[in-house]
């Protein structure tokens, strides 16, 4: 009896994951677009910055500095998108097919989250590889593996946030607003594009309140070997963020009506 329930839960999660994978593999233009943007940032901003600026207190301000931020940005975009895509499922009716199935809503949401985090990680890893190909040096293989774990944890958090928003937003116009009002501030206030050690107080407060900051800092630590925020703090914040967001997303999705 318990076994059957566990099997059913795994099957549900796997089914939702499989769907995301099939859809992802069919949207090649989306993948290329998602890779092109950070690549431009990396090459153009990286070159432009390094020819004019230096990090206060030493260190180059170049594409290596930007790489963790751009990986975080890709993970943020694609995982938030993965969660919010529930809005599309509602618009096009597929959500009804899921909601009427004799399966737990929680595992449906979890499957969707794991599917979304997989696509987010694929994109993050591809950018990591591209950055390496154009000359960014990583610290160690263990650092790279740890960075993937960070991508996973952060991705789950942002998907949870996306699912929670999708359960509350009633239209796809609302979705456009969320994407611009949420993603841009998150990226700009994260330390992806500037060092966070010498900021004025108000900006520092905003940056430290932003979960993406801890993702960028943790990736910087594992990939490049240095970070402003201690790694233990980054990991703790990301874990708490992730768990609370997936709990919130699962809860709101469970209450959602078609």
């Amino acid at each position, binding site marked *: 009896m318990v076994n059957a329930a566990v*099997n*059913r839960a795994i*099957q*549900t999660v*796997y*089914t939702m994951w*499989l*769907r995301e994978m*099939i*859809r992802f593999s*069919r*949207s090649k233009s989306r993948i290329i677009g998602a890779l092109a943007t950070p690549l431009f940032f990396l090459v153009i901003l990286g070159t432009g910055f390094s020819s004019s600026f230096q990090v206060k207190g030493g260190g180059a301000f170049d594409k290596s500095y930007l790489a963790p931020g751009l990986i975080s940005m890709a993970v943020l975009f694609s995982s938030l998108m993965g969660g919010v895509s529930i809005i599309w499922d*509602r618009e*096009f*009716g*597929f*959500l*009804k*097919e*899921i*909601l*009427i*199935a*004799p*399966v737990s809503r929680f595992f449906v949401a979890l499957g969707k989250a794991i599917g979304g985090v997989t696509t987010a990680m694929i994109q993050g890893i591809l950018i990591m590889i591209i950055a390496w190909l154009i000359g960014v040096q990583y610290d160690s293989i263990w650092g790279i593996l740890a960075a993937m774990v960070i991508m996973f944890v952060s991705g789950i958090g942002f998907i949870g946030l996306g699912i929670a928003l999708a359960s509350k937003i*009633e*239209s796809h116009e609302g979705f456009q607003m969320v994407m611009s009002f949420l993603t841009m501030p998150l990226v700009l206030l994260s330390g992806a594009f500037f060092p966070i050690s010498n900021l004025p107080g108000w900006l520092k407060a905003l940056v430290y309140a932003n979960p993406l900051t801890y993702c960028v800092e943790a990736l910087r630590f594992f990939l490049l070997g240095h970070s402003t925020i201690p790694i233990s703090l980054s990991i703790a914040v990301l874990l708490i963020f992730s768990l609370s967001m997936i709990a919130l997303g699962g809860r709101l999705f469970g209450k959602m009506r*078609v």
Partner: protein
Amino acid sequence: MLYAIETSGITKHFNEITAVNNISISVKPGELFGLLGPNGAGKTTLINMLSTMTEPSGGSAKVWGFDVQRQAGSVRQNIGMVFQGTTLDDRLTGRENLDLHGRLYGLDSKTRKNRINEVLSLVELTDRADAIVKTYSGGMMRRLEIARGLMHHPHVLFLDEPTLGLDPQTRLHIWEYIKTLNKEEGVTIMLTTHYMEEADHLCNRIAIIDHGEIVALDTPEALKNSLGGDVITLGLENPDDITRLCEAYQKNGCANIVSRKMNEVFITVKEGERQIPHVLALASKAGIPIQSVSLRKPTLDDVFIHHTGRAIRDKEVTEVEKVEYKLRSRRK
């Protein structure tokens, strides 16, 4: 278990509006049962409550022996549902849609494979199975949805307006599939429709619904026979004569007045062909000039008019429909 579907006093309020009012019906296993009524009559609300998509405000219902509120999971496992709009993933192929459905309902890989081929051939989609759903026509999508609803061998299949928006030829095709699967798979089917011909052609029994209540329930034949024979339509020169004419017929007892509209009176008589002269003679005896006469077999439309005083096609917007529209547009 005596009944596949059994409701007792099931009711649904949306705020102050009652969409479904105290409906009690019983559907036997294997029946093809129709809910016929105009848009906004409460058909979809009723079917949504039976399929656990909407919580009833009052009363109770059992589907395949399970309570729709307390045993929703078991109800879901035993029913198939084809919603009014499309609920397919249009980026996936037909086969992938069916496969995902099979997985969600816990079918193992071998069962899924066999069943997919079975249901695909039932709705004649085998050769388009591996095309992306986006490229399907409306009729093909509807057929795929019906196939998907059958994937997990449900005991009860709900079809909400299965032929809405389809061209007449496709509609005939869908009718054939519905009949076939009712017969060959032995599935109990409950469908909603506002097409009289559809209900008449397909259903073993029909519940006519208006303003959330059942106004008549029987086999199509019995419903039509309840009007008491053939329908004679009399066109009058002067609408003021209608009341007098009706009185004359009622006094004579030869005909039932079914309804009246403007300057027309609809009456039913047994063996209409023989009775026309008698009917006309009565009118001229009363001194009422008749302009036109026509004779036909009764339709479900006549039954609906008889019970509600208006045609099913009169597209009046009901309160429920307004609320549903508001709810829908708020989301957009």
